[in-house]
């Protein structure tokens, strides 16, 4: 029973700010949803021509391939520092950095914290999938207690490896950030909430308000060794217990 789409209204399509390139992400990986949300935000704010994206090292190392905007691929952990340099050099640009949890909260700890503390007028998307996706599934600073990874084969033992770090809570202790929020993508409602949060984080920058951080609880079906749907449930039922959703700072 073929439907004639020509007679219908297109209500959802690929954002204009995204290229046609196919993602290198695994099936069901939330990195793809986040990319789409960012693309849609750039569309809605009409800022593609003045946006510069910052691709980290991590599964999103190819991020520069997905957006129709200028982009810089940077050293592991240093995206917030590079964003600082870029934005200070050309304040009229809209600069966003896209960073994994290893990138943002482990090797990049200092750069992440101090860019936030300076209140750089940038937007940071912090993808917390509780794992080092790209390098094959090592422990991340956000890995849950008892979670098995290649470097915690018997599960993360807090006695030797400590506890998952809530980095947004850390950023929230600072005076400068205008918006710090933690979002998820495990169901449609969360996706819509997250979309609003990302838009707000970009809008803040457009309005010159300062530093915005959107932490997104993401999945890694491959290294979690779960199906994509199982991974969604895991975020909903387990991960959000450790990383509660919601706004931590909103000085907008």
């Amino acid at each position, binding site marked *: *029973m073929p439907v004639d789409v020509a007679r*219908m209204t*297109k209500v*959802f*399509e690929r954002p204009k700010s995204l290229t046609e390139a196919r*993602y290198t992400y695994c*099936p069901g990986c939330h990195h*793809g949803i986040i990319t789409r949300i960012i693309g849609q935000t750039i569309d809605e704010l009409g800022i593609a021509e003045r946006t510069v994206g910052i691709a980290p090292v991590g599964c999103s190392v190819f991020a520069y391939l997905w957006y129709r905007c200028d982009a810089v691929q940077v050293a592991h952990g240093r995206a917030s520092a590079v964003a600082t340099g870029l934005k200070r050099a050309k304040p009229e640009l809209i600069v966003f950095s896209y960073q994994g949890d290893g990138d943002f909260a482990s090797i990049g700890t200092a750069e992440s914290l101090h860019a936030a503390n300076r209140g750089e007028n940038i937007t940071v998307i912090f993808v917390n999938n509780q794992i080092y996706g790209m390098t094959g599934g090592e422990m991340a600073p956000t890995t849950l207690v008892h979670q098995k990874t290649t470097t915690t084969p018997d599960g993360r033992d807090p006695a030797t490896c400590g506890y998952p770090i809530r980095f947004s809570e850390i950023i929230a202790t600072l005076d400068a950030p205008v918006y710090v929020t933690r979002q998820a993508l495990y169901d449609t409602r969360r996706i819509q909430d997250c979309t609003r949060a990302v838009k707000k984080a970009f809008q803040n920058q457009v309005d010159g308000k300062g530093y915005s951080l959107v932490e997104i609880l993401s999945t890694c079906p491959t290294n979690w060794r779960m199906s994509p749907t199982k991974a969604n449930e895991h975020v909903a039922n387990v991960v959000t217990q450790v990383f509660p959703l919601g706004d931590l700072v909103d000085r907008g």
Partner: protein
Amino acid sequence: MPRGTIVIDAERCKGCGLCIAACPQKVLAFSGTLNASGYDVARMENPEACVGCTFCALTCPDIAITVYREKKSA
């Protein structure tokens, strides 16, 4: 005539199944046919139930889904 419909780009689909789980109308299912990359592609199993709510598309990590809705003033 259904209130909405979707088009899945089979070559982009990675068979993750997230759209299937997300569809409130249970419109979608795995097709059982593999694409060139070897993935079991999702497809509309009950197209008439589709309401064009876009949930599947919002969920699809690979932006393989385009959603259409009946024209309101038609």
